[in-house]
């Protein structure tokens, strides 16, 4: 019976949504091994000059596991060096393919197109620097007489009687690290930004963070950028340990304006 078929379809529609990873130019072609969350095939829903990268997802699926986050990032990062991509926030799901076209691609066609044009041939890198604990504490103690004084007052005494002194010492170190973080971040941004189109200072994620910077880099200049970061890292070896993430999708250079 035909009604049975329709009913089944309706049920299916209610359970399947479209997970949106990002927007790419419509001339993008996916490679066969492109996979998304739950290892699903990636589809492109095209409209004019743009296309949404989506995959079907069970509406009832509880996403948010580490592998889901990794799948989201993996697809976007794999796309970024090949084609400009506007990354969507993790967990963006729309009801069906029509909704993607009607409510996402159609009304935003021109702004998405313009943003993609700005991102053409550009990818993001993240530079993370973390102070070597021993090196940075010794530096602070050498520069700050008050801290050095507190240190010798505390030395060898028990924790309870020295609690106030230790609090005081800790506060001085915290403030000193804050100041160092700001000046090191500025210094590093300046040293590297010549090799990038733009940069953005990200919030520190750890109390010993020396720097957390995102750079938008021309694909053609990736090599010189990476070399510059490498040089910068070498110069500060022993004091700051650096990590370079990328090329990535431009997570830190695309924003939604309300």
């Amino acid at each position, binding site marked *: 019976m035909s009604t049975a078929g329709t009913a089944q379809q309706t049920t299916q529609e209610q359970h399947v949504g479209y997970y949106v990873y990002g927007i790419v130019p419509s001339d993008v072609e996916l490679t066969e091994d492109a996979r998304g969350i739950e290892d699903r095939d990636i589809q492109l829903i095209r409209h004019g000059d743009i296309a949404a990268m989506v995959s079907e997802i069970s509406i009832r699926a509880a996403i948010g596991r580490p592998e889901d986050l*990794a799948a989201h*990032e993996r697809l976007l*990062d794999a796309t970024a060096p090949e084609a400009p991509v506007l990354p969507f926030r993790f967990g963006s799901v729309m009801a069906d393919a029509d909704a993607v076209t009607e409510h996402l691609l159609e009304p935003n066609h021109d702004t998405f197109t313009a943003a993609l044009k700005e991102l053409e041939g550009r990818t993001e890198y993240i530079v993370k620097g973390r102070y070597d604990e021993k090196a940075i504490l010794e530096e602070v103690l050498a520069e700050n007489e008050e801290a050095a004084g507190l*240190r010798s007052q505390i030395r*060898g005494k028990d924790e309870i009687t020295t609690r106030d002194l230790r*609090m005081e010492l800790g506060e001085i170190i915290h403030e000193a690290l804050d100041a160092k973080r700001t000046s090191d971040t500025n210094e590093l941004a300046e040293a590297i930004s010549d090799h990038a189109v733009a940069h953005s200072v990200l919030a520190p994620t750890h109390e010993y963070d020396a720097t957390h910077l995102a750079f938008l880099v021309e694909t053609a200049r990736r090599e010189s950028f990476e070399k510059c970061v*490498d040089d910068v890292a070498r110069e500060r070896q022993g004091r700051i340990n650096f990590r370079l993430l990328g090329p990535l999708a431009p997570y*830190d250079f695309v*924003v939604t304006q309300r």
Partner: protein
Amino acid sequence: MTTAIQPASGGGGGLDRPSPTGLADVIDTILDKGLVIDAYVRVSLVGIEVLTIDARVVVASVDTYLRFAEAVNRLDLTETETGGVPELIDDMREGGSKSKTKGAAQGVLEAAGEKMRDFTGDRDESKKSAARRKRRDEEE
């Protein structure tokens, strides 16, 4: 013990290029970022918006201060190996329960990170190409 402060990898070179990214990196990189679907009215590049570093993550707290002081104390211990033992024992007695919780929490985080690394082991393969430009192919 509380070795909460360790660079993710203390490689010999100046720069560490982790190819399989750990969970912490994935979270830092993508969470709360990207376009929001219910407010996609307008989109634009941030451009050079330099945000001031706020104390969102690095919150000054009693715990932070005491941890810094503890780290300074550890410097002392490594410098003067002798006579450090009684202090160590004191440390363990005083902060025993506290450091245990911290250690456990950190253990979980690290375990998750390890799992992530395993999981993303094949990341590079799939990373090579998820997409291709038609236009570019035609030009070449």
